[in-house]
């Protein structure tokens, strides 16, 4: 994919060197002092009382929710879904995003763990989401038992499919499936979020950014041609 671009990616090591150099040279508190001659030359109004000003103390992130350490991030809250719930969720996530010839299934890149992090988060919206997701997972097992006498995880993909077909779109779902369809829509949204932010998911879509470039070039000719802009 990247060979379709005519941009010149700066070597990553090169880019990191630039960043490291800038960091070393220019940390806020490391200001060199002005030479006396220069300082004298411009002090017309206020006499200099002290030779040097104090740089601000280096504190850095305090590790609170409003000031987290961005470089060492951690979602450090307890996870609330049980192992059986996670197993059902995993089966559902992989129905939504299964493996194909371009990329793996949702569970391979950790989507169920992300959803567990999401519904367990210390926020009001997560509390509500946890109820919907737990309720939906329980419903899946009840529905599976009704149709096939088994739990959802024990069903084959062929058996899971008619259940998913009934609940895959809220707008067209029958009244008795509306609530389950809401649940399915929420899990699909979260599964897509988790999957397409993974390396495998970004590769699948052909996202080729987040690389330092020496120069940003115009869109490739084939893009312009396709848009009627060439």
């Amino acid at each position, binding site marked *: 994919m990247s060979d379709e671009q005519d941009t010149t990616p700066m070597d990553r090591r090169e880019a990191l060197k630039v960043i490291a150099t800038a960091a070393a040279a220019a940390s*806020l508190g490391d200001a060199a002092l002005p030479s006396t001659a220069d300082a004298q030359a411009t002090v017309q109004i206020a006499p200099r009382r002290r030779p040097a000003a104090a740089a601000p103390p280096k504190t850095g992130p305090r590790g609170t929710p409003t000031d987290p350490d961005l470089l060492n991030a951690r*979602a450090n809250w307890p996870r609330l879904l049980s192992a059986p719930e996670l197993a059902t969720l995993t089966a559902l996530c992989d129905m939504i*995003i299964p493996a194909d010839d371009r990329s793996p299934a949702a569970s391979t890149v950790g989507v169920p763990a992300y959803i567990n992090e999401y519904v367990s988060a210390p926020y009001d919206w997560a509390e509500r989401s946890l109820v919907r997701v737990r309720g939906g997972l329980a419903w899946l097992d009840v529905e599976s038992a009704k149709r096939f006498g088994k739990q959802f995880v024990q069903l084959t993909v062929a058996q899971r499919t008619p259940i998913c077909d009934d609940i895959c779109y809220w707008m067209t779902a029958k009244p008795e499936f509306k609530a389950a369809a809401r649940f399915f829509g929420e899990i*699909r949204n979260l599964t897509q979020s988790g999957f397409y932010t993974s390396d495998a998911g970004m590769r699948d879509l052909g996202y080729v950014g987040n690389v330092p*470039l020496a120069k940003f070039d115009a869109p490739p000719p084939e893009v312009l041609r396709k848009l009627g802009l060439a």
Partner: protein
Amino acid sequence: MAAYQLAVAGLKVLVLEAGRTYDPVRETPMFKLPRQAPLLGAGTKHKPFGFYDATVDGGWEVPGEPYTNAPGTDFKWWRSRMLGGRTNHWGRISLRMGEYDFKPKTRDGLGADWPLTYQELAPYYDRTEMLIGVYGGDDDLENTPGSPAGVLQPAPVPRATELLTKKHAAPLGIPVIPAHLAIMTQRQDADVLPKKIHPDNPLAQRVLAQSMRQRAACLWATPCGWGCSVKANFQSTTVLLPPALLTGNVDIVPDAMVREVTVDATGKATGVNYIDKTTRTDRKVTARIVVLAASAGETARIMLNSKSSLFPNGVSNGSGLVGKYLMDTVGAGIGGQIPALENLPPHNTDGASGMHMYMPWWLYKEQLAGKLGFARGYHVEFGGGRGMPGPGIFGGMDALTNGAYGKRLKEEARRYYGSWMWFDGRGEMIPNEDSYCEIDPNVVDQWGIPVLRFHWKWSEHETKQAAHMVKTFAEVIEAMGGTVNEKVETDGAKVIAAGGQIIHEVGTCRMGTDPKTSVLNQYCQSWEVKNLFVTDGAPFVSNADKNPTLSILALAWRTCDHILAEMQRGNI
């Protein structure tokens, strides 16, 4: 800006910062991925613009530091409790106000005129743009001034989505031109620019040159809103404070919550009192000059809380206008899906992270002729394309695919990725009597400081403008062959963002030509307290559609020149 300008002129400056110190060079999460953050980096009440956003202890709510709203008001007050404040996370959009913007009342009879003209501020715009580094084109349109040759950095090449929008907006009469953003597309010439910016000031030239040499050009990756460790964009923490500190003339005291300006018996400011947040103790600072640059809301709060026998209603508030004429920017937006953008060959659209092109307001003549039903204009910020996938990606795909799942979902995702675009209007609000802040007599924050209570009302000029925005954006999306994501509201009151939500809070200490109808003179100097100045958004008389930061910086520079001149004349 004031700390920098006064320090390079040789003054001793003490900067009191209500939040912690902050160093983007060490703290910016450059090149991090959503998956490396909690909740894939999504916004929460603790980090409203996402986990990685360069806001520390800030947002529309700050723990321990409440504000209140009068009944019927839903004003949202953004604060950033960190060194450099809101300059760390802003959009970098740097548009000059134009001739009309300084004299709106003269033009259409509404609001009030500024006590200065565009021509008076233009040299400060020039120097500010050279100092901080702003990219842009050479357009010079009606009330959308260009910059003299050699001032701006080259605009980045447009992305495919921007070229497509330009093509389809043209028949609708809407111009699409290079945006002006405070991001460097090339390194600054440290041998030439400092001499141009600070003629006759060797110290300023030297510290600025040294600072410029430590700034790199844009790397065309990683969002500006997270900060920039290579200093390619403008944050006061990477661009103004480093050279200010190099002079040796600046002290910075973090965690210092200023609560009051103190005055002597003659009505001169003697300094400020602040709470040291780390020890919860009250401290006193004396100074020859006090410059408030705490944000429009916080500056008004400090002034209103500075009560004395000479100033029973708050310092510099003889007019009773401190807190009045609070403004934000009118905001409304809509998105759409553009089939032409489906299945595009993969290519990098990250660019300068912000927009490369925008739409300046284009209907000045129609508006003046009364054809639009609202008095002031807006510009359009827009974007889309194959950006880095984040949480919520493909949230809009269910309806397009009738709830696809399985292998079909993956195929549809490949097809639709990058085919959505968004359009946001940013428009002028006319100051009104019903939008203001005052001290809430019943509530204090955790530092014991009385808090602000907001009052807010949009006029029909703003709500009709918001309706015009979404109608226009729907027309553009349809002209591109696309479909809007949602029903297009005709009632502007339903689409206009809440007051404060666009985070362009200005006004509250407006300048003017008459002490009875303004708080400050044209140099942002208090009419009543000669050694008290304001260099944030509070002096704004109107709030043109142009994002305020660049004008705040240019005005602050002009104020500092006035301070130095007045000191030399012995007036302060």
